[in-house]
């Protein structure tokens, strides 16, 4: 009986797909010769394909639901293999060592093109970790992150154009500028919650781009600013390859720095306040946490990182124009955070490699990139709503045995 119902359901799904894809996949109009080609065989493929896929889909949905039911309340104690591996210090130590070796050797073993792509991926790691402070830790949905990225990039570009200021001076200035913009935006906006905050930040992101596009006297409009110098190293003259490798190592440094800082922030008084704020705003306030200050701090810190990466971006491409700062970019960074698992550092790193490197290496599919993207997102949300790696926060643990010696000890 159940089989029959499933069969009928799949049949209906198949018919629907055939109906929906009919205009695109079956009818082909040749406008020059004014003929219509009917590709009936496509209809058959779609029908059979969706019929078969619906079974696969049902099987996995059923498995996911059964898994959820079986583990029941112990769900959070169940840890994935990946988590157990990362928790094992012997393993993680050798993994870190291996990663470090690969990271060090990489630029000397591969082409400039590869190094360039990798640098981009590392930039997204930093951007993802920066946004993770806002979205993952403080729980503020931010859809205009790219605006601060743009602020950083244009700070360097304009400072160089007008005053000839170099990369290393522009880096802190760009970060500072983005932070100031973050505070300016945050002040009126952070009293909004959830969806409303998302909409306003989305608007801000677009406004920034449109201003840059139209205010030609200030930003030279859509044509952008070019010939921005790459980062220098004590006035050392570097050819393109050398400077690419240099930038790569700079980015490795940035990633390490960001991981260090975000980790420290997470396990601190302010990190606790963010977490509490995410869990229950009213209770958090009633416990004496200044909501506005906590949110502003998260927002400003997140923006700072975007600003810093903006400067690096400008230096890397040696050219900025508003087209680099579209909403798609914000969505990309947010996807990295969500896909990786909100609040999880390792998850964000993996996700940014996945999302940045995959399209680069799958050039053949570049037309379907957004389609793939959407599919991955939907599948992810259904089967792993927590992200690739569920963030297991390091919690404060109280060690009882040491207390007897009169020295209470707490570790993070």
């Amino acid at each position, binding site marked *: 009986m159940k089989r029959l119902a499933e069969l009928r359901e799949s049949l209906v799904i198949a018919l629907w797909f055939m109906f929906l894809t009919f205009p695109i996949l079956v009818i082909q109009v040749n406008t020059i010769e004014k003929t219509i080609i009917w590709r009936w065989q496509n209809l058959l493929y779609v029908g059979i394909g969706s019929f078969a896929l619906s079974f696969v889909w049902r099987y996995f949905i059923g498995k996911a639901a059964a898994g959820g039911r079986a583990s029941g309340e112990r769900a959070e104690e169940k840890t994935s293999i990946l988590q157990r591996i990362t928790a094992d210090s012997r393993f993680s130590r050798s993994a870190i060592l291996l990663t470090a070796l690969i990271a060090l050797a990489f630029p000397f073993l591969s082409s400039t093109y590869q190094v360039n792509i990798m640098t981009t991926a590392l930039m997204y790691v930093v951007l993802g970790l920066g946004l993770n402070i806002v979205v993952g830790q403080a729980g503020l949905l931010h859809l205009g992150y790219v605006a601060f990225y743009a602020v950083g990039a244009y700070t360097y570009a304009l400072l160089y154009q007008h005053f000839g200021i170099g990369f290393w001076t522009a880096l802190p200035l760009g970060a500072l500028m983005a932070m100031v913009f973050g505070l300016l935006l945050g002040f009126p906006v952070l009293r909004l919650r959830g969806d409303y905050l998302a909409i306003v930040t989305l608007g801000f992101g677009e406004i920034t781009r449109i201003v840059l596009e139209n205010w030609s006297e200030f930003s030279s409009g859509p044509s952008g600013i070019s010939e921005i110098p790459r980062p220098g190293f004590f006035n050392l003259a570097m050819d393109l390859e050398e400077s690419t490798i240099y930038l790569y190592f700079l980015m490795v440094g940035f990633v390490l720095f960001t991981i260090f800082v975000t980790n420290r922030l997470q396990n601190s008084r302010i990190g606790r306040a963010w977490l509490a704020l995410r869990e229950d705003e009213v209770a*958090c306030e009633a*416990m004496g946490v200044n909501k506005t200050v906590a949110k502003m701090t998260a927002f400003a810190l997140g923006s700072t990182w975007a600003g810093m990466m903006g400067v690096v971006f400008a230096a890397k491409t040696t050219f900025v124009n508003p087209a680099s700062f579209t909403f798609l970019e914000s969505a990309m960074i947010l996807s990295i955070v969500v896909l990786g698992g909100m609040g999880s550092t390792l998850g964000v790193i993996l996700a940014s490699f996945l999302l940045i490197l995959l399209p680069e290496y799958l050039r053949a599919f570049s037309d379907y990139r957004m389609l793939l993207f959407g599919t991955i997102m939907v599948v992810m949300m259904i089967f792993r709503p927590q992200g690739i790696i569920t963030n297991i926060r390091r*919690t404060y643990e109280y060690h009882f045995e040491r207390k007897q010696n009169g020295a209470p000890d707490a570790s993070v």
Partner: protein
Amino acid sequence: METILETKNLTMNFGGIKALDRVDLDVRQGEICALIGPNGAGKTTFFNCITGIYPPSEGDVFISPPAGKRKRINGLPVHRVTARGLARTFQNIRLFPDMTVLENVMVGRHCRTKAGVLGAIFRDRITRKEEKAVVTRSYAILERIGLADLANALARNLPYGDQRRLEIARALATEPFLLLLDEPAAGMNPRETEALEELILRIKTEEQISILMIEHDMRMVMSISDRIFVLDYGKKIAEGTAAEIWENPVVIKAYLGEEFDA
């Protein structure tokens, strides 16, 4: 005994509805006071007004901390009220469910500590010391409340009664001089209620913290309160000791409805 909390003419309007109507109330140092009344009488609104969640429409709230001057606190933001020494619990438990028991209490220490972003990043000596003090102190509170052996459990895995106690522990971490408990015994069985009673009395005597609580469990209210205030339709209709309230015809009428004499 000194008055530590005083409201004068406290009024709260929601549109046309007077949720609180000129309520005068005072709590003295070292007292356990109870605020009772039928459902919808405005008890929780009263709490929300003094803790700053709602700014009162009219009237004043004054606090006089044992080691401080009398101050008017209406309109102060919630976190500042907490910093001044009023801490509260909630009618429907509002813990941080995905944080551990210890971390929940540590959040309560937030307003008594100072470490900022730079401290968090550089983790200097002062910050480390402060952090250590936060942990030790929070753990000590848990020990006193009797939740120490659950310190590393997630708050949401705690049994109901313990969640209520954890809320009290978290409130104590803010070092209040007056603890506001919103129906602390709601949903507890008689044994848990008894333990809670004992806990509240201990907080009063050992920590010298006064208590104002909203409670429906009359047996508990009558046995531990020094004074009781009765609200009905936003008005204070009676105040006095347990015995006085028990006899008061106005209170009986509010609770049981008017008697009809045929």
